[in-house]
């Protein structure tokens, strides 16, 4: 039943000794029925002698009734499972297959490649060390190839083997192989694939599957089986960061409290200091208990029981970590979410989020964008449907102890569960802010430390008001690039100065040269830019100054957040209104503001209820200024 080995018959004890030391490799196969995926798996099972004669006899019988090879032995029939699926001639769920060679035991997650089965592929990829992506040599890189590659890289698989199949149908052409390989490299450079390989095969006939193919002498690399046996996966495990989520507390008697769990990453040693999260209590590892006896150290992915020196309170959902290497503890975070249920994801709806050994209720507060698995394009979307993937902001009712998924699969992943039906709705991978390519805003982010308290000035607001003869307020000039915001802001500052008032301009471009030099012009980055500017304005207002902001500030919601930050009676929105065509022409004529021309916002939401609206197409600067002055006097600001 296993692979061939003479040792089985001659020296079974030697054989067993050899096999007790085997390593486990899990891989996923991606491709559709047409790519010959089932054929390849059948071939691997068949060639590694994993098929019994009774099973084989059944398949030979099936090859005549169900096979696609005209009655000839069809290895694909070894792998397809359920009756209904067999009748349809397709596999529609993740199926797991097992085989072993002298070096390794293999678990194959066999997933279908159809567009609607992103869900299954993500499931299979979640536990895999390696992915085989099948390409039909006749068709080359297709949309589905891109889809499979994206999902595999999203799920953090480090090793990808592209098997270019059906080489027999293209006359074993090296040229065709080279072209497909180059095409694949072309788009794969956009993905995160640390280790990429290519092998030309003909699965139906076994070329380059187990034995090198004499029909492709130009190919000098390893065969598919030899690659699977030898690819180095030892460095894929994280032995750096100790994470021990407590799963169960073992209490056989009053004197013993053992914390049982699986070490999801790192190494734990007897006598070493540990910290219990979230309580942050510190202790030492007294014993590491197993039924085979205590051990001095244990490492991922072992399941052990830890006894601590001190009587600290620890329960399921807590995590043991090492001082100086502590994961994040967050209530709000960003994640890539794969939706897996017919019932669509709705931002704001309450779900359960299960991560490590803890389930926490919460919601997806924002769907930042949906990502098209075929083109990788990002687009705004109201929600996610079955098999759709999006970047989300998650808000939980309590904190989660987590790492970014790229660094730590086990502490960076979660599933989403429906609170009523208990169905598994989706799966998420936590994004690490430091490595995240996208910026984000920080309106709701808590300060870095909870022990911070504001200090009070010895100079009161009223004293400043009397000295400067003005109410310190913030005025936002919002409008499209070219609407005249900076021009009007500086003119106003000059006029106020002439009138003996104290005012200052915070101009978008100046802010971006310094304080916000790390920000670009995406929606979220514009939002963060306004937040920072508003925080500076708040400090200026405290100092008694009138603050004039010249910013595009295209979103109503962001402007509202700025108003909340500064206070409704201290923040005024003045809309500089001019048609887009006029603004664009002005920008072109000026020719100076290249950045802003390039960064014209995709969408500008005019304020619904501005405190003042100025038509900068029809009115001159002086006319506008007069209106602003009138407004400030009316409001008794000056």
């Amino acid at each position, binding site marked *: *039943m296993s692979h061939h080995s003479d040792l*089985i*018959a001659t020296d079974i*004890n030697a*054989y*067993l000794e050899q*096999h*007790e*030391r085997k*390593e*486990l490799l899990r891989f996923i196969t991606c491709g559709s029925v047409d790519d010959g995926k089932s054929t390849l798996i059948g071939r691997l099972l068949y060639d590694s002698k994993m098929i*019994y*004669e*009774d*099973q084989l006899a059944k398949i030979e019988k099936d090859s005549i009734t169900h096979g696609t090879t005209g009655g000839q032995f069809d290895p694909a029939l070894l*792998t*397809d*499972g*359920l*009756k*209904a699926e067999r009748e349809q001639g397709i596999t529609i*769920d993740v*199926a*797991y*297959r*097992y085989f*072993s060679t002298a070096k390794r*035991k293999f678990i194959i997650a*066999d997933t279908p490649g159809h567009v609607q089965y992103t869900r*299954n592929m993500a*499931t299979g990829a979640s*536990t895999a060390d390696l992915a085989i992506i099948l390409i039909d040599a006749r068709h080359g890189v297709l949309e589905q190839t891109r889809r499979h590659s994206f999902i595999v890289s999203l799920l953090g698989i480090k090793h990808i083997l592209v098997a270019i199949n059906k080489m027999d149908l293209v006359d074993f052409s090296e040229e065709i192989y080279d072209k497909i390989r180059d095409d694949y490299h072309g788009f794969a450079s956009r993905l995160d694939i640390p280790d990429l390989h290519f092998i030309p095969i003909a699965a139906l006939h076994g070329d380059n599957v187990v034995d090198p193919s004499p029909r492709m002498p130009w190919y000098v690399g390893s065969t598919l089986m030899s690659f699977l046996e030898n690819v180095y996966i*030892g460095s894929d*495990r994280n032995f750096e960061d100790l994470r021990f989520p407590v799963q*169960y507390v*073992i*209490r*056989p008697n009053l004197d013993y409290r*053992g914390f*049982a769990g*699986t070490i999801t990453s790192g190494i734990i040693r007897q006598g070493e200091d540990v910290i219990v999260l979230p309580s942050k209590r510190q202790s030492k590892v007294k014993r590491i*208990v*197993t039924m085979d006896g205590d051990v001095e150290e244990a*490492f991922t*992915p*072992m*399941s052990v*029981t830890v006894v601590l020196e001190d009587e600290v309170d620890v329960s*399921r959902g807590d995590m043991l970590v090492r001082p100086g290497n502590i994961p994040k503890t967050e209530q709000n975070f960003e994640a890539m979410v794969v939706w897996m249920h017919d019932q669509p994801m709705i931002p704001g709806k309450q779900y359960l989020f*299960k*991560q490590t*050994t803890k389930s926490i209720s919460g919601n997806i507060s924002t769907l930042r964008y949906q990502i098209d698995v075929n083109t990788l394009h990002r687009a705004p979307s109201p929600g996610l449907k079955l098999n759709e993937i999006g970047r989300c902001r998650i808000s939980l009712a309590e904190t989660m102890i987590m790492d970014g998924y790229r660094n730590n*699969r*086990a502490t960076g*992943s979660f*599933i989403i*569960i429906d609170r009523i039906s*208990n169905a*598994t709705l989706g*799966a998420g991978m936590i994004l690490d802010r430091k490595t995240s390519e996208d910026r984000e805003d920080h309106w709701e982010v808590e300060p870095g430390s909870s022990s911070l308290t504001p200090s009070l000035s010895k100079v009161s607001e009223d004293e400043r008001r009397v000295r400067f003869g003005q109410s310190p307020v913030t005025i936002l000039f919002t409008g499209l690039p070219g609407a005249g915001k900076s021009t009007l802001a500086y003119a106003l500052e000059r006029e106020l100065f002439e009138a003996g008032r104290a005012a200052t301009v915070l101009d978008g471009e100046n802010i971006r040269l310094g304080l916000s030099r790390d920000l670009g012009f995406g929606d979220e980055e514009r939002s963060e830019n306004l937040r920072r500017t508003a925080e500076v304005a708040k400090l200026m207002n405290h100092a008694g100054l009138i603050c004039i902001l010249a910013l595009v500030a295209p979103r109503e919601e962001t402007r509202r957040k700025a108003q909340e930050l500064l206070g409704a009676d201290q923040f005024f929105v003045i809309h500089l209104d001019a048609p887009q065509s006029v603004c664009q022409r002005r920008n072109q004529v000026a020719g100076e503001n290249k950045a802003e021309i390039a960064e014209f916002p995709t969408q500008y939401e005019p304020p619904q209820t501005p405190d003042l609206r100025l038509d900068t197409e029809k009115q001159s600067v002086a006319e506008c200024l007069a209106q602003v002055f009138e407004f400030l006097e009316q409001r008794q600001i000056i």
Partner: protein
Amino acid sequence: MTRYHLTHLKQLEAESIHIIREVASEFSNPVMLYSIGKDSACMLWLALKAFYPAKPPFPLLHVDTTWKFQAMYEHRSEMADRFGLDLIRFVNEEGLQQNIDPFKFSGKHTTVMKTEGLKMALNKYKFDAAFGGARRDEEKSRAKERVFSFRDEHHRWDPKNQRPELWSLYNTRVNPGESIRVFPLSNWTELDVWQYIHLENIPLVPLYFAAPRPVVHRNGIWIMVDDERMKLRPGEVVEEKMVRFRTLGCYPLTGAVESEATTLPQIIQEMLLAKTSERQGRLIDNDEEGSMEEKKREGYF
């Protein structure tokens, strides 16, 4: 290879222990199905490891068809005594009264005494999770089954509507009446189980080892004469042969194989050189194509 390297068996062991602990943590009334065979022995061993030095915090359930081998009943008692386990024996009393002869009606006997019996036991004790020793490599329809396999209030499995299962994050939530079948050995193969039993020295029913036993040749297989309920048919003679069993079930339905294998390495050797799969010895599977899948939909383990 570094010192921080786990063999495949140790990795499988760690994963299974994780699964067993997860069930003990998240379900209010779990149970471990115990059929006395080698897979049950392996699963029970893993449960003992998972909670050491405490005992597993759930009972074992044996759905007894009353037709098991005598040696199996003896082994069951030994294990329960040795490890101080809480063992529930359940017999479908209604089925017993129907007095279905397994020699004549093998399929019906299994359905009533085993499948129906299991459902009755689960209903009676209101278990919300039940461990089973099934493996994905056993049979094609099992290849797609989840580790945590959801069953509705009628114990039905819907292969088209399974919960996606990612990483080692198991969705353990059920509503009242619903339950989960949990398969901690999902990713083990037959060879893995045997090898682990060998390495760990796990106690087994002696029937797995070859010994001289009284057998009768019937329907192409060797049936052991285990008690007086087995009546000889015309022309049949009881022979003493050196035989063993690759799989254990009800003795009238389980075929013996001629063998000289008296040690575990010899058993493994025999298995590796064998040309037929282990379920071949069971009468129940060979009826029709996809038969196991149909049984599973109805609630067979």
